[in-house]
């Protein structure tokens, strides 16, 4: 079973954002090539350098947005994980799961809360930075409602009720 990490509304918003970023990135890349093929003074070189930087920045952000949008959560008989561009990036086996809880991931605009499944008991400080944990931790922004019974059946530890109330959608 797979599902997108985005809601339908977020998908539309991000698709638009990606189109805008791609258009701006391509136009900026063309500007950079044009500027460097028409250098006539020091100012052209400086502005061209900034244009290259800007083009690379836009295209890189575009890549990360595409990567984020391609992320799929999945569960199967072995365990659960996240795939990006069709490749498994994070995976945890059902039998390895020792703790289910809530923690946060840092973002540029404040931290976001996530439900996590981890192969060991986390300390308080580790819950505020789920990304950088070196061991197996899968974190979801929500648990799809159709997955919940299957997950509950396979998990060695039960999903706490108050957590299920908040995260199963």
């Amino acid at each position, binding site marked *: 079973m797979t599902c997108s990490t985005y809601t339908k509304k977020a998908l539309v918003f991000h698709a638009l954002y990606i189109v805008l970023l791609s258009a701006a990135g391509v*136009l*900026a890349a*063309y*500007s950079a090539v*044009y*500027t460097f093929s*028409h250098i*006539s*003074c*020091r*100012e*052209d070189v*400086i*502005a*061209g350098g*900034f*244009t290259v930087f*800007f083009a690379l*920045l*836009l295209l*890189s*952000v575009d890549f*990360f947005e595409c990567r984020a949008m391609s992320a799929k959560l999945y569960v199967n008989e072995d365990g659960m994980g996240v795939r990006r561009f069709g490749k498994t990036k994070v995976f945890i086996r059902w039998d390895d799961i020792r703790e289910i809880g809530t923690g946060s991931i*840092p*973002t*540029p*605009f*404040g*931290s976001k809360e996530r439900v996590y499944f981890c192969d060991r008991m986390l300390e308080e400080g580790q819950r505020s*930075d789920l*990304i*950088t944990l*070196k061991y197996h931790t899968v974190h979801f922004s929500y648990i799809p409602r159709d997955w919940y019974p299957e997950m509950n059946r396979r998990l060695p530890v039960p999903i706490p009720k108050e957590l299920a109330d908040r995260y199963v959608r």
Partner: protein
Amino acid sequence: MMWFALIAALLGMSALTIIQTPREWLKRPLPLALLILFHAAGIASILLILFAVYRMQDGPLRELIIWTETVYVTVTAFALLLSVVRYFGFELARHFRHRRVLRILSSSTAFLLAALLISAAYMVPSIHNAVTLRTVTYDVPVDKSCGTDALSVAVISDFHIGGGARRSELDQMAALLTAADPDVILIDGDVCDSSSSADDLAYMEEILRGLHCRYGVFYAEGNHEQECRFDPDPYLLRAGVSILRDEGVQLENGVNIVGRRNALVTGVPRIMADCGLDAAAPTVVLQHRAKGLSQLEGIADVVACGHTHGYQFPFLGILMPYQRDISYGHRMYGETHVIVSSGVAEWGYRTKWPSQSEVTLIRMSFKEAAA
């Protein structure tokens, strides 16, 4: 239309910055109050410059509004740029699971400090470049002969008097022109804009009247004259400036000066034919925008342009292939020399980098006439 686009762009930039503000700042009273003050003062200064500054006398209040807008636009633009850089850095740090980098990038204080520091680092040289004029000289050999072996042409453009050039910049311009002692002075448009007051134009008239050169002062219009609240023509005419709107004149030494309207609709050969100018004589074309330059190849010997302000903001280079053929400096189109001046002042905000405000001096040398 242009105004609406400009206001939409600036307010859009403010809105994006507000959206990206860290939530924790909005929860604390002091940061929230400072944010509201910053954006309110900035947006008010933008609107005042567009709609009210032209009614004000030159003085501290007007200066305060213009400098507030300069700081606001710079800090907002860099904060926005930095937020994209931060996003990129964040994704990289997440990919490599680099805890310390993530901590730094998550810190709103670090972000604010970085935005202020980068803005300050940019503003120091760019304000200097905006308010300090220099003379930039180009030596231009022309493979034609006329009644003289050399002609020095000074090009001054983009005063944007009021919001752009203040009296001190016009004084500097006059001093540089006196020192350069050119044979002819060309004014390449945008002498005023929506921020110019009648007093500003009167001061410009006084400065231009005080300029002396052998063959006179000629003017071609720019794109901002149409938004000016006061018609600049009477001021220019009283100062002894000849206005060339798709017109040309032949100087006593045989050199043609052709001034084009901002729209660049009428071709130079047509203007020269209408004015009875000799097509074989050396020809200097004065046009505000650096567009359609390849069409002047073989027709004009020198084309002087303004409009671009060089690169007033380095990221404006991104518009280069879509808006203009050349942004700044000298380039050859066949045998035609194209020179784009960065202008005497700037528009919108008082910063200019990497270019600097300038008086452009073109020293033309001609082939000796056959005996």
